[in-house]
């Protein structure tokens, strides 16, 4: 009798019980690991962990290193242009496909396939294409255009734009897919009304359709900014952060400090700064969506 009631009590708790392994793992992963890295960043660790408190000196040292400052600046330039470029190309492709074109799924697959390919593969192939000795410049020279010059990837001032271009190539299909889904959810009456008013097609898109799907643009922006902040493999495969430090990004600095130079406290400090950048994007977004949900809830009673 008591055994059965124990069994049934356990059965009642099944939903909570099945969550325990995940909860423990998530707590370890999210809370413990974060605090752990945070502590390493203010510890006396060098090549090996030394958990004695060492103060915030590593943060100061980090921000005094030119390489880190350049990498953080690169993050802003890369992040901004990568997101804007992906949204622009993504919108353009979505609008084109939205014109009841033939073979829609073929076009869609072509624009979306880069997303399935790793940054390592993407970076390797585009490095070959952009490199003056093997890529576009070489092909143009061989075609007879001897003075053709396309060496952005080895040019300190232009190399970052190679990374941005490649990033957009990789991500714009993702933006396209979500924006296309948005275009298809727009109320037809709105469009009809604008057409009766005599507005032209590009104008209808710009003034009526795209403004109504702005929440999608915000969602895509947040996802892409996240990708941008975490960018690592693309740059490793494409430029290895060079020439010099021209295309270095924070994630590369973290790896070098932790595993190449044996400065794990400073590496941890750099990792914390990546988390800070990410929080600056995610926290406002979460607050905003919650606020929106609340507003929506009030409107519907």
């Amino acid at each position, binding site marked *: 009798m008591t055994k059965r009631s124990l069994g049934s009590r356990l*059965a009642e708790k099944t*939903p*909570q019980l*099945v*969550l325990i392994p995940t*909860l423990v793992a*998530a707590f370890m*992963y*999210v809370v413990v*690991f*974060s605090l*752990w*890295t945070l502590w390493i960043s203010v510890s006396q660790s060098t090549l090996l962990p030394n958990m004695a408190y060492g103060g915030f000196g590593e943060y100061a040292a980090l921000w005094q290193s030119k390489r880190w400052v350049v990498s953080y600046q690169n993050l802003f330039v890369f992040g901004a242009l990568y997101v804007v470029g992906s949204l622009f*190309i993504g919108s353009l*492709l979505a609008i*084109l496909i939205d*014109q*009841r*074109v033939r073979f829609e*799924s073929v*076009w869609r697959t*072509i*624009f*979306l*396939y880069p*997303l*399935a*390919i*790793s940054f*390592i593969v993407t970076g*390797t192939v585009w490095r*070959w*294409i952009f490199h003056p000795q*093997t*890529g*576009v410049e*070489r*092909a143009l020279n*061989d075609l007879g255009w001897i003075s053709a010059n396309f060496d952005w990837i080895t040019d300190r001032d232009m190399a970052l734009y190679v990374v941005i271009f490649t990033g957009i*190539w990789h991500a714009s*299909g993702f933006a396209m*897919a*979500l924006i296309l*889904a948005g275009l*298809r*959810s727009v*109320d*037809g009456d709105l*469009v009809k009304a604008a057409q009766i008013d005599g507005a032209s*097609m590009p104008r209808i898109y710009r003034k009526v359709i795209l403004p109504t799907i702005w929440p999608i643009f915000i969602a895509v922006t947040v996802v892409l900014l996240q990708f941008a*902040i975490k960018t690592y*493999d693309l740059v*490793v*495969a494409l430029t290895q952060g060079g020439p010099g430090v021209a295309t270095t990004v924070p*994630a590369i600095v973290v*790896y070098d400090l932790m595993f190449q130079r044996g400065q794990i406290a400073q590496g941890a400090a750099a*990792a914390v700064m*990546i*988390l800070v950048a*990410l929080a600056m994007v995610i926290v406002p977004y979460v607050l905003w969506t919650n606020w929106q949900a609340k507003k929506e809830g009030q409107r519907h009673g």
Partner: protein
Amino acid sequence: MAEAVHQAFDPLSTGSRAKQIRSKTIVYGLLTFFALLYMSPLFIIFINAYRPLEEIVREGFISAPNTMSWSYWGEAWSTFCIGGNCEGVSRYFVNTLLMTVPATVLSTAFGLVNGYALSKWRFKYDAWVFGLITLGVFLPAQMTLLPWAFVLGKLGVSNTIGGLVLVHTIQGISFTTLFCRNYFVAVPDDLIKAARIDGAGFWRIFWRIMLPLSPPILIVCVIWQFTGIWNEFLYGTVFTSGSNQPITSAIVAFSGSGTGERHYNVEAASVIFAALPPLLVYVFGGKYFVRGLTSGAVK
């Protein structure tokens, strides 16, 4: 509603004949331009996996092939030396496969059950539990590298595929739980209530009601996890070395290794081996992926 938009909104077959032709030219012209741009890396890499090395060195990558040979594929797969290991990429390919399949299956299975429990069996603080799990989606890998290295060492799985399976499963559960929970929230609660009145318990409802409803989100989870883990580079590089590395690390080692001449043709073939599995998954499942993604997995 979508139909209404499209009936009212078909510039390619409305207006005068001349105008139709003009808009068709613009639309298909732009689409073709972008399609060529997007496909070009794929073309280039395929062609160069067949060209002899002297030709690539002489003419670069972007050039019509004169002579072609199948031999570089075999060399890339089984005999080429990467970092002193002369087994080609086959070994690293198998490493990645052995890492990706279990991690995908495990994280998806956990995600389904978690998503179901969190959306249909509400309990006190369930929002907090969900919030904690989904924070794992945002946490940058850099914050976890040193702790993971320590934990993997303590567990005795440093430099093993098993260690990478663990890392990817735990990280992946955050994603799959988020996807599945947001998907299952839309399943009517009445369905669950009726089943409970009939005496069905947690697992019975899961097997009989939720699982049959879950293929759309199952596909999203599997594609997301499979491509993400297959393509992952940082964890593989940090936690494994030598012949235990996944294929992405091997590709990078390829670029760095090799004294003297670069074997571009073998490298091109290797890169295709690295890219092919997620590409196939995408080409065959992409339609369902986009459908699932846009039907509320991403919020």
